[in-house]
């Protein structure tokens, strides 16, 4: 195990380069470039805030902020998972010719996603101040929640990035799945809206507690549910191990399948 960690540390420069390549590639050809990191969430927010309060009749003081504080973290999860399906397939060229620890690919996706999310957090803070809700010390929990969310996301990315090599459809299928997943997570609504007999199944969704935690520190301005976070930390770490093992198993035939 430690040999692997040592190897990954040795490859940190390559990890850095991969993350940079993600950023360079993402906005290189677009006109607005890096600004999309900011504008994208803003536009989404606008659309949802205009449409949903009328359709769902949700009683919230400030639906816009309610939505925003959950939507941005959700986007980190969704876009990272979506990108991870194509990261190994997309790097097929160099994978077939050079050796490097392949797991760096999904790891670089999660890291660049997290950095992108942190940039969007600036927007959240500005919005909180403007809307009058303000910021409390509870936001200091942000790095902790982010870390837990990243661990869970990484576990999923390990599995998906490797599986997509063998079943290319996953790349398209996962987008539909993520749409559904978002509706099964209290991003657009509160947990109270769910009939009690289903509520307990909702908690099986890792993103439920994560999104609640973010909403707690941003919108409700309370501490996150520490017990839930602790449970998901443990589950996340176990998940990463399992995901990693699956990745390593599937990795063996990468060069031949691509």
């Amino acid at each position: 195990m430690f040999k692997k960690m040592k190897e990954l540390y040795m490859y940190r420069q390559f990890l850095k380069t991969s993350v940079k390549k993600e950023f360079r590639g993402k906005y290189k050809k677009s006109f607005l470039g890096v600004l999309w990191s900011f504008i994208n969430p803003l536009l989404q927010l606008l659309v949802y805030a205009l449409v949903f309060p009328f359709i769902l009749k949700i009683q919230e003081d400030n639906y816009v902020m309610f939505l925003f504080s959950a939507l941005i973290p959700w986007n980190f999860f969704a876009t990272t998972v979506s990108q991870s399906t194509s990261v190994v397939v997309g790097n097929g060229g160099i994978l077939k010719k050079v050796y490097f620890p392949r797991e760096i690919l999904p790891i670089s996706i999660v890291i660049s996603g997290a950095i992108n999310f942190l940039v969007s957090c600036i927007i959240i803070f500005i919005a909180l101040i403007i809307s009058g809700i303000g910021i409390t010390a509870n936001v200091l929990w942000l790095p902790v929640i982010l870390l837990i969310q990243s661990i869970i996301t990484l576990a999923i990315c390990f599995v998906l990035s490797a599986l997509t090599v063998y079943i290319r459809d996953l790349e398209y299928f996962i987008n539909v799945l993520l749409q559904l997943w978002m509706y099964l997570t209290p991003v657009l609504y509160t947990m109270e809206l769910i009939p009690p007999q289903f509520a307990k199944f909702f908690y099986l969704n890792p993103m439920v507690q994560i999104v609640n935690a973010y909403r707690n520190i941003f919108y409700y301005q309370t501490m996150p549910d520490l017990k839930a976070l602790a449970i998901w930390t443990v589950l996340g770490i176990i998940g990463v191990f399992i995901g990693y093992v699956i990745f390593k198993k599937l990795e063996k035939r990468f060069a031949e399948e691509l």
Partner: protein
Amino acid sequence: MKKKSNIVIDVKNVSKHFNVYYDKANTLKERAIFWKRNNHEVRQVLKDINVQIKAGETVALIGINGSGKSTLLKLMTKIIYPNEGEIEVKGKLTSMLELGAGFHPDFSGMENIYFNASIFGLSKKEIDSRLEDIIEFSELRDYIDNPVRTYSSGMYMRLAFSIAINVDADILLIDEILSVGDKHFQDKCFNKMQELKKEGKTIVLVTHDLGAAKRLCDRTIWLSNGVVRMDGKSDKVLDEYVKECS
């Protein structure tokens, strides 16, 4: 008694086959509908290979095209994995298997040095300290800022070789790409490999240049039809090989 501790590349009972698909199905739809499509032919490329290479050895790997030389190098590099057996490698290994492998065509030569060296595992500081040596050896100073897709194959090779010898690898695996360089650079590479040999590095070289093999390599392994046909002193093996080929 073999001195086990000295072995840097240990190939144990390795077999490798490839499935040559006539028309590969890699989506769900294709697998469901055209289930007959996965018609393939199994090509056994390597059969039960046993090779132990000790530290500091310079080994030539010869054989006709298709005998499994490149596959063996790829297995040692861990780009592909054996179907049976295992390969243990001790120490840092770098390989030059394909022209332009690990090069990003739109990046400049300079950027590719960083990219390539970081794929190998070097940190930015380490690359910085070696940058001069690499550019110097490649003789590509005037072109180093141009994107590598404008490079000729000889230039690719020069850059690849300069990087490969400057990353402090203990083991160098080189496939047949050296022949792409002009005589001047080939001699330069040859001399450099002699130097590395004196420093105790392990070199495995796939070559069709039997003269070079004889001069540089003490040991030659002859692969034929996926098995080790002969493995021993270069003079002996190469003479047999020439006899067979004529």
